[in-house]
């Protein structure tokens, strides 16, 4: 069904990283370990982006998620250190949550993904273009008035606001 070439093998490795890491995140008691599993999962996603010819996004993924957000989570874990050795890591509704998540997955797969994009699905036979837009085109699109210049500036504003808010909340002065 699917030919086994280098790309497929790489895909399988990265998929294992993503899903294995994600399972580690939600099941590990030790939060530092959970963060490292999160890093593994995010790294797998970066590999996916490379396979999908979006290397810029892969670099951003590593730079922002692994280099910054994961580190920030470690800081937060350390700052709230007495909370890292809870006896119960799950709340009372964890069985319900597991059922809900499982059902959601089945619904997504059987209800949406397989009938439309799966083998013999409605959209499965689409031609995939070999030509891919470059990162420079992303740059032009981001500041072009007909495309994304407004979201671009709003993103900057959002980050500024987030930073100001977070500083005000996190500092313990006055």
């Amino acid at each position: 069904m699917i030919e086994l070439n280098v790309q497929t093998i790489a895909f399988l490795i990265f998929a294992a990283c993503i899903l294995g890491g994600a399972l580690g995140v939600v099941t590990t008691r030790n939060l530092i370990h959970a963060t490292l599993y999160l890093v593994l999962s995010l790294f797998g996603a970066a590999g996916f982006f490379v396979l999908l010819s979006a290397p810029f996004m892969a670099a951003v993924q590593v730079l922002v998620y692994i280099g910054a957000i994961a580190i920030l989570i470690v800081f937060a874990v350390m700052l709230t250190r007495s909370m890292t050795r809870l006896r119960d890591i799950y709340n009372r509704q964890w069985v319900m949550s597991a059922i809900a998540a499982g059902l959601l997955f089945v619904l997504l797969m059987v209800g949406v993904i397989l009938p439309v994009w799966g083998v013999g699905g409605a959209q499965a036979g689409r031609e995939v273009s070999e030509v891919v837009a470059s990162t420079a085109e992303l740059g032009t699109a981001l500041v072009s008035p007909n495309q994304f210049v407004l979201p671009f500036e709003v993103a900057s504003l959002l980050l500024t606001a987030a930073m100001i808010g977070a500083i005000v909340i996190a500092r313990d002065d006055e």
Partner: protein
Amino acid sequence: MESVCSINNFVQCLLNLGIAPDLAQFINILLGVVLVAIVPLVTVIMLIYIERKVAARVQDRIGPNRVGPYGLLQSVADAVKLLTKEDITPLGADKFIYNLAPIIAFASVILVWAVIPFTPLHVGADLSIGVLYFMAVSSIGTVKVVVAGWSSNNKYALLGAFRTIAQLLSYEVPLVLALLIPVMLAGTMSMQGITIAQQGMWFIVMAPVAAVIFFIANLAEAGRAPFDLIEAESEIIAGYNIEYSGFKFGMFMAAEFIHAFTIAVLAAVIFLGGWSGPFVHEVPVLGFIYLGIKTFIIYLFSLVLRSTVPRVRIDQLMAFNWKFLVPISIINVLMTAFLLQVVRALGLAPDPAQATDFVANLPQAVILLLGNLVVIGIVLTMIRNTGRRQRLEDEARHAAALERELERVSAPAGD
């Protein structure tokens, strides 16, 4: 001609021998990886010797001179010593993660070499996002600090790790801001592309401020003096790698040395034109030599800096970054962007066809250089004024304290 096997036609050569195309491709890649990886591994052995010699000379000592001729085999002796040292894992350490940290440390440094262009023809992988690849790989370096500091189960290691992370994170900001300028000038993020764009004019002429910021921030990223708080022995013993011994500690050390050399190579590639030099297109191997010379000049400069400048304090370190480097980098990016628009409006930008021509690049370079000089002038004036004010305040405070002291001493005598 065809019967000669060299790096340049290796795949063809293997195919002639009757090897399957996929396998030939794989062998080619593997050989390339080994060749690229050997460069830093071999140089690190030399670097330790050179570093000790230079530091010794600056401090009016002789340095290593016992092992082998001129002490040349000192590094080998060091390696053998580390290899035979007992490898102690502290009780309560998180074993798996504890062993992972030195490996991440080494891998995160050596991976940068994959995108370094050695000659016009030879580059490991000419990624279209080379510059960001370097940033991404070096940001993995912070993970090693977290991992090492946390898994050692030692207060000092954890405290050192936190300081180190604060330093590494902070200095990444001016580093990335400084990298924006070569990308802007070259119009590409590939390392090879940036080198080619400097055929006409090195970027250090067009963007000296960015080059200096890049160099300083990289020194801090590598934890080199004067930013070596990471291993400030007198304050936090040895920082995050305090509990490591034997060859795991050796891995941290080797990674640090290679990192110091890597930043020199990156500065040479991004700002000093990499392999470019006379006759490089006729004899590509010359490019390797040019790059080596440029790299070693920068590396020696960082060594002299290491031996002459005192270590900064942690609060000074942070203030220097956030209140000095970052604002200057932001102003620098804006100024360069504005001047490039001015250059384009005046029609002085070099024609893409003549991008490698020195004269065609001259007007643009002069305008950018003038802009940079203005920034440097303003910054130096501000530093002088601030320094003068600070000195006057200090002197006034001292004088007041002295006066109080004199009054206190002389008062009983008057009674």
